[in-house]
Structures are given as structure tokens and as C-alpha cells.
């Protein structure tokens, strides 16, 4: 029996004074960013200080996030007690700038969604920071690493609490920047530099559509704030307007904007077809892969879709869904299967995990599309923990195998690296969705259940089930190659230091325990995000079809695990030998190993187009614009020549001639001074005659 909820608009009872944590929420992203700024000024040698600054700043953010989370929970309890809608969005908004009559506002929000994400990001981030102290200990650019890490953490936290789509976009861009800086951390390696560029440019493509969506939303609704006491852009008032405006192609304005924003999310979260940067991003150090490309940055896209979910689901007919959500679901499902297929045939330990991440992100998107915010976010949270665990475990393996990354050169590590083996297996089972004790089972099942019950979209369910099979298969393959069998590497492997294995243990614990807050018996997580009361009841399992679904998914997992064991098991084929699967279906193996030719496709189409365009632009620049410039220069040179001619001949010549003539005239006059007295006399006589004539002529009557 559900509690009746009374919808109360907070505005009707006036604005209560805000809790101090809500006012000071901005410290959570600000402190790590400031720490990054300070670390940037430190010298390379001050390793201890830089890591201490980064870890302490993120610890501080974690502390504040926990306080915020507790505040949200207590607020929820209070509201539920009074029968009010517990879904409260505490916002602090302020105007950034005005132009004319319009103004652009920024602000931050604290609601259950943001609170959960804050805790996850800061907690997982902190664990990875601590791990990095050990992993990057021998790297000389240690300080720079922590500067970028801190900046990333600050920006990601900024994305989480942002109440304005514009502020979110700004922090989103900073996240992309730090991702570029961290992927290309070892920039002397050309492959790393290329991977960083690829990441940035591919996500940029998505960001362009995102920005178009922002602009459209602003012009249609007049505000970019999410929640603004009823006047925010995704609050019912605005959505009513947006879902009735038509935008062509059968979409409403809300749907079109939602699709544009999803394009940005697809870029950041590596959905098809913008997934190509994620596997190459493994060029960065392993903690970077763990933090950014497993737990947080790629989750930002999912978080964005969750944030603007009201927009995505606006105008849905009862029992049905919107175009935007359908697109999100299909893209997610397709990505899930596509990436899982490719992961089967990879040999780099991190690349397998990268494709796995892409696949799981597809799951999250499909979950959001079919099941709503809570379903998708639950899988995001659980995935963050076990994927970070897997990546950090892989880092531990790489570190222990002396920077070896090819799984064909590993093996038998369960003996040499027992702690890593245990934690890695826990993570792997969570990812596969092994029943009951592992969080992945509950979160993935939530998605499958939503897929099954989705009235409008049917196909994705089967795709997702197939994806689960593949996930189990390739993870078993990886574990068999790495930990089972016998050692095929060069030197003996060794276990990693405590500073690296302790975070692994912590994450492993959460990978198992988190499942408990999302089971159907006690859907606490979903209740928080959906704004209802959470009760513990075994009757949650009694929902029709749930038992069948749980059984099906468990069977699929066992099937995958079994297949993997059968093909790979304890055997450790030599690196030169072909893979067992390759031996059986070589025609399938080839394309899978070559990543289904997506990169090659882009190379032939987009890259080739850009090369052609660059040549055209170069030609234009050199011939046309350069030609014009040369022409102008030539005209000026000609003009200068003309001026010179004029100057030499007329001006100088004229002047010289005049001087010559004056000189000659002077000479002429000088010739009168002959020195001969008789000539003077003659002149005198002539003058006298003239004077007399003048005199007499003038005095005539």
C-alpha cells in the first residue's frame, strides 16, 4: 500500500531558510580546483606535498558530500513524515550576466540524484587518488599528474551539482580538457598524444550538438536553470510549453532538444558511433583509466541524461514513451552488444576493460531509456565501483608484471598476486552479474526487468541478454588468461604494495555490498531517486515475472562462465598460438579483433574528407588569398616604382634644372660684370637715356 502523497509546491509555503550545506555546496567542486591551482605552482620534486594537497582536498569534498547526502536523507524523512513530496531540489541560483532584458543564471542544486553522485564521485575518486600515490611513485611527472587529477575531480563535482545547463556545460568542457591532459599524460609517446587528440575531437562532435541543444532550450524556455521554484527549464511549466512546440520530423521541441543533449552525452559516454576514443584512451596511466573512463567521466553522460530526464520523457503518451527515450534505448542496447562483441577478441588487458565499459554504458543508457532514472543510476553506481576495482586491479597486475599489458604473456598470477586475484575476481563476478551476492546482478537485473516490461520497445531486451552472455564470456576469458594456468611472462610477477591493494579491498567490499540497497525486497536506492518511501518487504520478490527473469539472467551468466571456462580454463596457450575461439570460428575472430572496422570506416569517410578539405583550404590559402596578397604587393611595388620615377625625373629633375637655370642665369648676369670699364660706361649711358626718356615722357603736358 503506497502512502498518499500530497503535492506541495514549496513556493506556496514561502521559501524556508536554506541549510548551511546547501549554501556552501559550491565548496565541493571549488576546493579540489583550488588545490589543482596550487599544485600547478609546485616544483616537480615536491611529490609528497602535491599528493597530500590533492588527497586532502578531495577528502574534504567527500566529507561535505557525505554531509550533503545525510542532509538530503534527513530532509526526505522529514518531508515523508509530513506527507510531502520528498523529492526536493534545494537550489541556490544567481544571475551571471544580463544582456538587454534576458539574463543568464547559474546555480547549484542539492537533490537525491546529486547527493548520491557526489558521494560516489568523491569516494571512488579518493580511493583512486590514494592508489595513484603508489602507482605513479616512480614517475617523474608525479606533481603534474595530481594537478590534473585534482582539476578533474573538481570539474566532475561541478558537473554533478550544477543547476544550470550552461554551468554544467562549462564543467563538462573542463572534464573533457582534463581527460585530454590525462590521456596524453605521457605525451612523448606519439600513440598517447594521438589518443588524447582523438578523445577530445570525438567528444567535441557530441558537444557541438549538445551546445545546439542548450541554445535551443534557452531560446524556447528563456532559462537554462533546471530548477527555479517552478520556473526552471525542466519543470512542468516549461515542459508543457516545450512538448507542444513542433520542431519538424514529428518531434516536439522537447524531444529535439533532448536528442541534441543526448548526442553530447553519447560522445562523452562512448555510445555508438562516438565510442572510438574510449579504447584508445587506455594509453593513459591506469588510475586515469579507472577514474575517468570507468567510474566518473564516462558516467557524466549518463548523469546528464538522468538530469534532463524530465525533458526526455516530456510529452510521453500514457503507457508509452517518447521518441527521445526510444533513441536512447536503442543506441544503448546496440552499443552494449557491439562493444561486448569486440571485447571478446582483444588481447590487451585494459582494452578488454575499455570495451567492457562501453558495453556497460550502453546498458546504463538502455536502463535510463526503459526504466527511468533510478534503474539507470543504480547500474551507474554499482558499475563505478566494480569497474574502478577491475581497472585498479588491472593496474596492479600491470605493475606486478613489470609493465606488461598483453594477457597472452601473463598467467598463473593467482599464486603470485593473491590479493589482486581475489579482488579482481570479485569485480569480475560483479560485472558479469553473478547472482545474489554481487551488486552487478541486482543492477543489471533492474535494467533487464525494465526492458522486459517496457511496452513500447521490445527488441532491446534480447540484445541486452545476449550482451550479458558475452560479458560473462569475455571476462572469464580474461581471468583465465591472466590469473589461471601458468606464467608466460619474462620475470617473476610480484604482488603490489599495500597502498595499492587496500583501495582494491575497499572497492571489492562495495562491489558486493551495494547490491543490497537495490534489491526488489528493499529498493532503497530507487526510492530515494524516485521520491517515495522505501520499505523492506520480501514481497518485493513476488512481483510477477521477476523470479523468471532472475532465473534467466542467472542461467545466461552461468552459460557464459561455462563457455569461457571450457574454451580457456586452465590452459595457457603460448602467445604465438592462435586463440581457442579463433581456431573454431576464424571468420568471426578476424573482424572482432579488428574492432569491427569502425575506426577504418571513419578513416575512409570523415578523416579522408577532412584531409581533402584541408588540401582545398591550403590551395585556397596559398593560391587565392596568397595570390591576392601577392597581387596587392605587386601593385604597391609598381606604385613605388612609379613614384620613384616621378621623383627622380620630375621632382629631382625639376629641382635640379631650376637650380641649373638659376646658376646659368647668375652666370648670365655675372657676364655683365666684365671688368671692362667701357662696358660699364655703355650701360650707364643706356640707363641715362632711358631715364631721360622716362622723365620727359612723364612730364609731357
Amino acid at each position, binding site marked *: 500500500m503506497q502512502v498518499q502523497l500530497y503535492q506541495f509546491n514549496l513556493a506556496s509555503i514561502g521559501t524556508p531558510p536554506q541549510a548551511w550545506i546547501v549554501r556552501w555546496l559550491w565548496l565541493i567542486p571549488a576546493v579540489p580546483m583550488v588545490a589543482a591551482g596550487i599544485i600547478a605552482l609546485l616544483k616537480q620534486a615536491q611529490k609528497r606535498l602535491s599528493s597530500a594537497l590533492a588527497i586532502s582536498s578531495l577528502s574534504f569534498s567527500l566529507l561535505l558530500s557525505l554531509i550533503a547526502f545525510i542532509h538530503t536523507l534527513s530532509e526526505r524523512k522529514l518531508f515523508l513524515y509530513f506527507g510531502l513530496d520528498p523529492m526536493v531540489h534545494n537550489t541556490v541560483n544567481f544571475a551571471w550576466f544580463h544582456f538587454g532584458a534576458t539574463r543568464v543564471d547559474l546555480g547549484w542544486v542539492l537533490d537525491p540524484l546529486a547527493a548520491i553522485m557526489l558521494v560516489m564521485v568523491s569516494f571512488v575518486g579518493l580511493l583512486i587518488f590514494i592508489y595513484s600515490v603508489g602507482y605513479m611513485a616512480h614517475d617523474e611527472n608525479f606533481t603534474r599528474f595530481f594537478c590534473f587529477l585534482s582539476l578533474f575531480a573538481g570539474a566532475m563535482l561541478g558537473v554533478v551539482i550544477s543547476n544550470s545547463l550552461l554551468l554544467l556545460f562549462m564543467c563538462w568542457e573542463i572534464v573533457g580538457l582534463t581527460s585530454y591532459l590525462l590521456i596524453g599524460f605521457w605525451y612523448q609517446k606519439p600513440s598517447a598524444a594521438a589518443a588524447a587528440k582523438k578523445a577530445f575531437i570525438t567528444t567535441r562532435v557530441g558537444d557541438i550538438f549538445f551546445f545546439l541543444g542548450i541554445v535551443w532550450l534557452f531560446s524556447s524556455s528563456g532559462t537554462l536553470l533546471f530548477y527555479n521554484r517552478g520556473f526552471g527549464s525542466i519543470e512542468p511549466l516549461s515542459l508543457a510549453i516545450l512538448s507542444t512546440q513542433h520542431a519538424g520530423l514529428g518531434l516536439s521541441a522537447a524531444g529535439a532538444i533532448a536528442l541534441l543533449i543526448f548526442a553530447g552525452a553519447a560522445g562523452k559516454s562512448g555510445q555508438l558511433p562516438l565510442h572510438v576514443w574510449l579504447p584508445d584512451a587506455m594509453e593513459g596511466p591506469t588510475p586515469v583509466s579507472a577514474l575517468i573512463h570507468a567510474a566518473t567521466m564516462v558516467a557524466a553522460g549518463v548523469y546528464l541524461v538522468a538530469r534532463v530526464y524530465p525533458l526526455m520523457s516530456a510529452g510521453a503518451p500514457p503507457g508509452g514513451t517518447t521518441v527521445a527515450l526510444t533513441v536512447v534505448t536503442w543506441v544503448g542496447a546496440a552499443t552494449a552488444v557491439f562493444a561486448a562483441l569486440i571485447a571478446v577478441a582483444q588481447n590487451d588487458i585494459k582494452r578488454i576493460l575499455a570495451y567492457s565499459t562501453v558495453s556497460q554504458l550502453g546498458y546504463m543508457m538502455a536502463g535510463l531509456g526503459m526504466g527511468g532514472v533510478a534503474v539507470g543510476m543504480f547500474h551507474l553506481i554499482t558499475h563505478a565501483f566494480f569497474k574502478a576495482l577491475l581497472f585498479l586491479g588491472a593496474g596492479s597486475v600491470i605493475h606486478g608484471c613489470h609493465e606488461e599489458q598483453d594477457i597472452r604473456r601473463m598467467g598463473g598470477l593467482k599464486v603470485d598476486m593473491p590479493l589482486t586475484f581475489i579482488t579482481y575476481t570479485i569485480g569480475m563476478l560483479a560485472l558479469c552479474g553473478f547472482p545474489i551476492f554481487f551488486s552487478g546482478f541486482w543492477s543489471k537485473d533492474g535494467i533487464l526487468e525494465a526492458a522486459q516490461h517496457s511496452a513500447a520497445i521490445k527488441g532491446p531486451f534480447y540484445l541486452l541478454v545476449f550482451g550479458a552472455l558475452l560479458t560473462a564470456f569475455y571476462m572469464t576469458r580474461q581471468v583465465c588468461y591472466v590469473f589461471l594456468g601458468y606464467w608466460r611472462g619474462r620475470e617473476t610477477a610480484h604482488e603490489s604494495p599495500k597502498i595499492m591493494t587496500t583501495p582494491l579491498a575497499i572497492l571489492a567490499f562495495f562491489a558486493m555490498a551495494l547490491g543490497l540497497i537495490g534489491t526488489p525486497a528493499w529498493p532503497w536506492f530507487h526510492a530515494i531517486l524516485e521520491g517515495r518511501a522505501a520499505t523492506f518487504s520480501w514481497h518485493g520478490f513476488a512481483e510477477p515475472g521477476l523470479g523468471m527473469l532472475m532465473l534467466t539472467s542467472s542461467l545466461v551468466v552461468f552459460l557464459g562462465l561455462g563457455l569461457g571456462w571450457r574454451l580457456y580454463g586452465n590452459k595457457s596457450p603460448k602467445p604465438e598460438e592462435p586463440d581457442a575461439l579463433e581456431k573454431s570460428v576464424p571468420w568471426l575472430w578476424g573482424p572482432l579483433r579488428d574492432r569491427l572496422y569502425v575506426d577504418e570506416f571513419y578513416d575512409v569517410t570523415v578523416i579522408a574528407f577532412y584531409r581533402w578539405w584541408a588540401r582545398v583550404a591550403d590551395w585556397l590559402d596559398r593560391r587565392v588569398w596568397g595570390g591576392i596578397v601577392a597581387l596587392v604587393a605587386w601593385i604597391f611595388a609598381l606604385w613605388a616604382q612609379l613614384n620613384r620615377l616621378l621623383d627622380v625625373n620630375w621632382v629631382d629633375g625639376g629641382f635640379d634644372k631650376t637650380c641649373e637655370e638659376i646658376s646659368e642665369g647668375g652666370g648670365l648676369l*655675372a657676364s655683365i*660684370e*666684365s*671688368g*671692362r670699364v*667701357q662696358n660699364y*660706361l*655703355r650701360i650707364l649711358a643706356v640707363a641715362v637715356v632711358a631715364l631721360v626718356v622716362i622723365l620727359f615722357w612723364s612730364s609731357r603736358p
Partner: protein
Amino acid sequence: MTTPLAGYLLVAALLFAIGLGGALVRRNAILVLIGIELMLNAANLNLIAFWRYGPHPEALTGLMFGIFSIAIAAAEAAVGLGLVIAIYRHTNTAELDKIDRMKG
């Protein structure tokens, strides 16, 4: 009938012109001086003629003028001829064409 004034004046003018012509045409310095003396004499004649036929001849103005003119002419001739001799000594010629050190 006594000679009219105009006659004397014309004779003086003619004598003057002759003197001037001589001064302008001849090359020898002494002949130039002779020409100048003739011109002076023509002027004297003019003076005396005007004295005789002009108003108030009892004032003796013209006569005095003429006498003084004669005296001065003598002085001038002396100096002039002295100069010619001096120049002759320096340049060994009395021809005016050749004496052009003041040229330019």
C-alpha cells in the same frame, strides 16, 4: 640777331654725344679720358649758355658753376691720367679690353 639758346644747347649736346661715343668706342684708356673731358666741356658750355640767357645773370650762379667745373675737371684729369699711368705700369698695357681683373 643773336644766337638763340637752343643753338648753344644743341652744340653742347652734339659735343657731349661725340665725347660719349669716343669714350665708348676707342680702346685706349687715354682716349676714353679725352672723351670724358669733351663731355665735361659740353656740360660747361651748357652751364655758361644757361647763365647768359637764363634769369638773373647778375647773380653769377652759372658762371661760378662753370668756373668751378673747369677747376674740378682739371683735378679729375690729373688723377685719372695718374691712374692710367699706374695701371700701365702694372699691366704693361693701356688698352681697356685687356684690363678686366674686376670681372665677375
